């Protein structure tokens, strides 16, 4: 695990030490006339908004859509989402920074989340995480991070690779996973959760 810097050395939280920039205008609801939004992104967000009684409930799917479009929830991505939803970028930033799967800092497009919560940790999750980091090296397209419980303790230690749950993992699997991701192949087909025979009859038939 990386060492956590102590508070005496300053803030470990990005943003705590930042003042605002007076050269910027106040972040009000972006005007449609001055904020171009890709048509397909607008359509997608509007579709999400139509799903809920209160359109603000669509904030999370809308941000995810913008994240897919831009690679991460950049200020531009947030402004575009805000423009379509008629909200301030601030409102969406509050939502975005709260949730882990919305990236408000530049990050790789390939999301590899290694669970290090209690069950996985007991079965060697931390070692998997280290091995994964090592296998990924410095590839900026890969977003490798440890994650709190992903809800698949039965396959601990596990990871979520672009949403595909795989496990139980050995440290040696990490190199394969990274290679599969880079090549755009299916990840460890024999260790995928959805292909795992389970007690559920329908799931069994499908697998």
């Amino acid at each position, binding site marked *: 695990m990386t060492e956590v810097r102590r508070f*005496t050395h300053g803030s470990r*939280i990005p943003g705590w030490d930042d003042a605002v920039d007076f050269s910027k205008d106040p972040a009000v*609801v972006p005007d449609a006339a*001055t904020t171009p939004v890709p048509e397909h992104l607008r359509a997608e967000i509007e579709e999400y908004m139509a799903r809920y009684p209160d359109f603000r409930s669509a904030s999370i799917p809308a941000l995810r859509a913008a994240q897919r479009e831009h690679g991460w929830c950049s200020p531009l991505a947030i402004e575009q989402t805000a423009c379509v939803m008629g909200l301030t970028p601030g409102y969406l930033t509050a939502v975005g920074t709260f949730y882990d799967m919305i990236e408000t800092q530049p990050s790789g497009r390939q999301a590899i989340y290694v669970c290090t919560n209690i069950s996985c940790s007991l079965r060697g999750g931390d070692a998997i995480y280290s091995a994964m980091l090592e296998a990924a090296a410095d590839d900026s397209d890969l977003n490798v991070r440890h994650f709190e419980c992903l809800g698949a303790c039965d396959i601990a230690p596990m990871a979520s690779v672009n949403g595909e749950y795989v496990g139980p993992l050995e440290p040696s699997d990490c190199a394969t996973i990274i290679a599969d991701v880079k090549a755009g192949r299916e990840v460890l087909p024999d260790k995928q959760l959805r292909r795992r025979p389970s007690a559920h009859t329908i799931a069994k038939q499908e697998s």
Partner: protein
Amino acid sequence: MPRPEQKMVTFTLDGREVSAIENSMLVDGAKCVDVEIPVFCYDAKLGQPVGACRMCLVEVEGINKLQTACSTPIREGMVVNTESDRVKESQRAVVEFLLINHPLDCPVCDKGGECPLQDITFGWGGGTSRFIEPKRHFQKPLALSPLIAIDRERCILCYRCVRFSQEVSEDYQLILSERGAHSFVSTFDGHPYVAPFSANIVELCPVGALTSQAYRFRARPWDVEGSGSICTLCPAQCNVTLTVRDERVLRVLGRDHDEVDDGWLCDKGRFAYQAMHVGERITEPLLRDGGELRPVSWERALQSAISGLTKAAGRTGAVVGGETTNEEAFLLQRLMREGLDSPDLDSRPGGALALDLHRALADPALSATVVDIEFAHAVLVLDCEPVDDAPILDLRIRKGVRRKGVKLAVASSRPSSLDANATLSLRFAPGAGEALVAALDAALSGTGDVDGLAASAGADVDQVRELAALLSEAGEDVVVLWGERLAHGPRGDHAVRGLLNVASRLKLASADGAGLLEIPSGANGRGLRESGLLSNAGPGLGEPGREGRDTPAIGAALAAGDLTAVYLMHCDPVRDFQDRGLWNRALSKATTVVAHAGYLTEGLIEHATVIFPAEAYAEKEGTFTHPDGRIQRLRPAISHARGVRPEWQVLATICKAAGLEMTFHTVPMVFRALVDAVPFYADLTLDEIGGRGMRWQQTAAAANLPTASDRAPYQLTAPPAALTPNGSLRLGTYRSIWAGSEVAVSPALKFLIPHQQVELSPDDAKRIGVGHGDRVEVTYDGAAVNAQVTLRAAVPTGTVFLAEATDSQPANLLTNGEPRLVEVRPA
């Protein structure tokens, strides 16, 4: 909407029987019997409690866990204990937790001495801490905006500021970023938090995390005094407490008054106090001598003014701005009418309104109060922008919509900041208010040509019908909040008749919580009219004796040489009124221009003969009348700046010199004379007005209001059709909340001075071939305004908007109060 019924219930608090309002929160109920439950995050003004700070935990019998008193509603028979060991232990624990990372910089903290965290630690804390690790340290203070500094070490994450931004002012700019222990108050991507009401968060903050940049390190709470008064910068007349140290105002705080301001202030009201203590302020009389304005003695200035005015007796006009008190207005109208034999005086910039209509509008049955907005079934915002014209009403409307389910309809020319909250937003052509109310009247009555009238207004006929349906079906309590602008111009009478028709169709006079509420152009617009500062009405809306010229006519008469002198009380027509060209000609032609002014504005620099320094509102004594008829007292908080004299005395001196008998020694004596002259003020005394004000409609003397001879519904004449923008564009104007000398000279607010911008719809911009940020020239008949384009999707195609009273290139270069078509081309 009928006010919610308040049922009293009895519950037991610390062994005592207490009666309190059912379903009110325990914290509030406890206050009734002087039991203080400590809170950080709770403030009744913020609406629904969140229970974030856990400071208010109490024991409720029958519930195993401790409950937050801020979010536990009182029920009959509840048994509550705030002093048991369990409660005390939890209070000590919460304080200990909050203090873990709170820095010990109270000696250099602005909040020190008036800090809830200090007080609660002292009152309910354990006195010791087991925390021996280093505290978190961050950069501090950091700027959150040019007005507000943030100190994140001190923040206890109570959410008050964020809740204000999201649920009260609804600007949604201030947020809590990140989660859990990482949470911090911030904005989107380092943008500053600049909004009309932003600095309320400084007053809300229960620790010293948010401090005012202007007040930082200026004083300690124990060496200042608070002095209650009212803010006179706009018609909302918020109640304020001025923080005074060594005869200087250092800060303005809200003085909560539910029926006026609901406890909030706008940033203009909060920071424009700085304008009292700046070098730009005029603090001695000025006299034009050899073409230059030079400081002179009071005697010489008075002598010049008196000789200039008396020489022009019978040929003098007076134009009055909104910061004039009722007493000054009363003296000035006597000076004009009795002393100088000139009936030409006016306080309405847009021209006279028939006396009968003034009386009809003042009818107590037809007048709505500020609180009515909050409890109405429906509110119609008509031809005004509350956030610019009377900012605090904007918050009241938002509160009504958010918390009480008020249905909001907005009918305006320019896109409104309330559109997002409105059930219905309707646009009409600038200056076509008359046609719009006529169309609405026709739609409500079911007779008349709604289609034709809506077309005349440049509005969508379906929307007009929807609006009529919304207003008539919402319920009996409908409040129409309308701007004086509707009644401006030569057809103002017709527009007001239409408005009164709408009011009578909706039966606003018969419902208690319904009515009309006008936002006048001037802060004391209503008081000035009732004190007799109208060309066609004496004090108390009485017959004027001799009818005089209204504001535009005074300008025209000066330009034509029919009037030779003019008295400008707190206004600069060149800057403030329509038709800059006319007023420039008028004032340059006048031989004597006497002005009362706080700051040198362009028209005064150019044309004034004598300028008397105006008192700052903190120096002034007198009364103001709120748009809903509440008479409020203005109390002096500091002594006059050296060289400034009370303006009522200046007026009295001139009155005396003009041959009037003046027996007044104090402002209350003038008030007495005013009350004697205004029949419907007859029951008012300064004692009864006190610190909270009093609505004259609630006194028995309200019956003395002269009644209108003619009643709604009136027979309306066909309104002129809105101009068709074929190729050229309709010109609309607005006045920003930040327009005005006080903002321009206050160091803290200077960054907000409005610059001219041309608001265009994307379609028009495309047709003209310009984009966002390009410079364009807006022209009318040879006159031009040159400014940058701001594209706004919500601007109706065919219309262009310019700001009034900007630092340069103001809209009144092009306007004369009538609808106009202008050309826009790339500059």
